C-alpha cells in the first residue's frame, strides 16, 4: 500500500484536490501538513489521512517538550535534519519517526554517527523529492548531491529510507512506480527503492497504529484481553 508521508497542503479547502490526485495515482494514504482531529482519518474518497507533525524547536529542551505534546496525537512525527546535536537527539529518540531532508534544509548533511543511531532507534530518513522537481540545471545538481550523499550514508548504516513528495501542489505528486525511479536516481538499487516507496511508510504507520492503540502498554507489552471487574469478598 503506497503512502505519501508528506504533502504540504496550505489550507484544508485544497485537501480535495490532493485526494483526487492521490486516487488517480494509486496512492492509498497521505500525511498532509494540516492538523487533523485524530491520528488517522478516512476521507470521503476512501483515502487514509495521517496526522503528521514536524518538530519546529531549535533546542533539545524545547524539542522534548514539543514531542511530548505531539506524540500521542500525531501518527507521524518528523524532524528536519539540522545541527549535529539536535539531529543526533532526534535520531536517538524512538518517538521520532523521520529525519527529513527537503527543500527547506537542502544544505544539511546526514552524519554517519547520526545514521547509525537512527538505525538502532528505527528512525528513517525521509527524502522529499519536490526539491528536485522544482529546480533546474546547476541548482538541481546541488540538490542531487545532497540527497544522494544522504541516501548513501543511510544505506551504508542500514538506516531505512522513505521517499515522499513534499508536494505543495497536487500535480507535483508522483505515482508509486514513478517514485521508485526517483529512488534509482538517488543512488538506490531497485529493491531499496521499492522498499522506500511501498514498504517502509506502511511499516511506520502500522507500528505507530499499534503504539497509539489503547491496548499498547510498552514495547513488547500489550493488553490482549481485559478481565471482568470483580469486587473483593
Amino acid at each position, binding site marked *: 500500500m503506497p503512502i505519501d508521508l508528506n504533502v504540504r497542503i496550505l489550507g484544508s479547502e485544497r485537501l480535495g484536490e490532493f485526494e483526487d490526485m492521490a486516487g488517480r495515482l494509486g496512492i492509498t494514504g497521505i500525511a498532509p501538513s494540516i492538523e487533523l482531529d485524530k491520528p488517522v482519518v478516512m476521507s470521503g474518497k476512501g483515502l487514509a489521512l495521517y496526522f503528521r507533525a514536524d518538530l519546529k524547536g531549535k533546542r533539545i529542551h524545547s524539542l522534548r517538550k514539543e514531542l511530548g505534546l505531539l506524540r500521542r496525537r500525531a501518527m507521524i512525527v518528523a524532524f528536519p535534519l539540522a545541527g549535529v546535536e539536535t539531529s543526533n537527539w532526534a535520531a536517538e529518540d524512538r518517538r521520532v519517526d523521520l529525519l527529513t531532508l527537503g527543500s527547506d534544509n537542502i544544505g544539511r548533511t546526514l552524519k554517519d554517527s547520526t545514521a547509525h543511531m537512527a538505525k538502532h532507534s528505527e528512525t528513517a530518513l525521509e527524502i522529499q523529492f519536490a526539491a528536485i*522537481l522544482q529546480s533546474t540545471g546547476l541548482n538541481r545538481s546541488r540538490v542531487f548531491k545532497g540527497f544522494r550523499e544522504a541516501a548513501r550514508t543511510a544505506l551504508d548504516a542500514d538506516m531505512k529510507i522513505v521517499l515522499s513528495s513534499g508536494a505543495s501542489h497536487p*500535480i507535483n505528486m508522483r505515482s508509486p512506480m514513478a517514485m521508485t525511479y526517483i529512488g534509482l536516481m538517488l543512488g538506490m538499487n531497485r529493491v531499496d527503492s521499492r522498499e522506500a516507496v511501498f514498504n517502509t511508510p506502511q511499516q511506520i504507520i502500522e507500528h505507530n497504529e499499534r503504539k497509539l492503540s489503547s491496548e499498547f502498554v510498552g514495547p513488547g507489552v500489550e493488553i490482549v484481553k481485559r478481565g471482568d471487574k470483580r469486587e473483593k469478598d
Partner: protein
Amino acid sequence: MKKTRKRYLQFTLHRNGAEITEKQFSNAIWSSLLSLYGEICTADSKFYLNSYDAKKGTGIFQCNAAALEKVIASAVMINSIGNIRVSFEPKKVSGTIKGLG
C-alpha cells in the same frame, strides 16, 4: 551492426491545463534526458514516441532496453511543459507492443 533490445512503456501524462501535443511531449523528454544524462546517453537511448492520445494523456513509447530506466527517470522529472504543469506516470513495461495489452 548488432541489433539492440527494445522496451515499450505504456504511460499516462497527468496535466492541469490545456492538451500537450505529441511534439511538445517528445521534446520535453529529449530535453530532460539531455539535461540529466548528457548527449551520449540521449543518443544511445533511441527514444521514439509510438503513440500518444493528447486528450487522455495516454501513450506508448519505445527505447533501448539498456536506457529504459534513464528514459523513465527523465520523464518522471518533467515538472512542466510550456506553462502546463504535468506529472508523468509509468504504467507498464514490455518487450513487445502486444505485451502491453
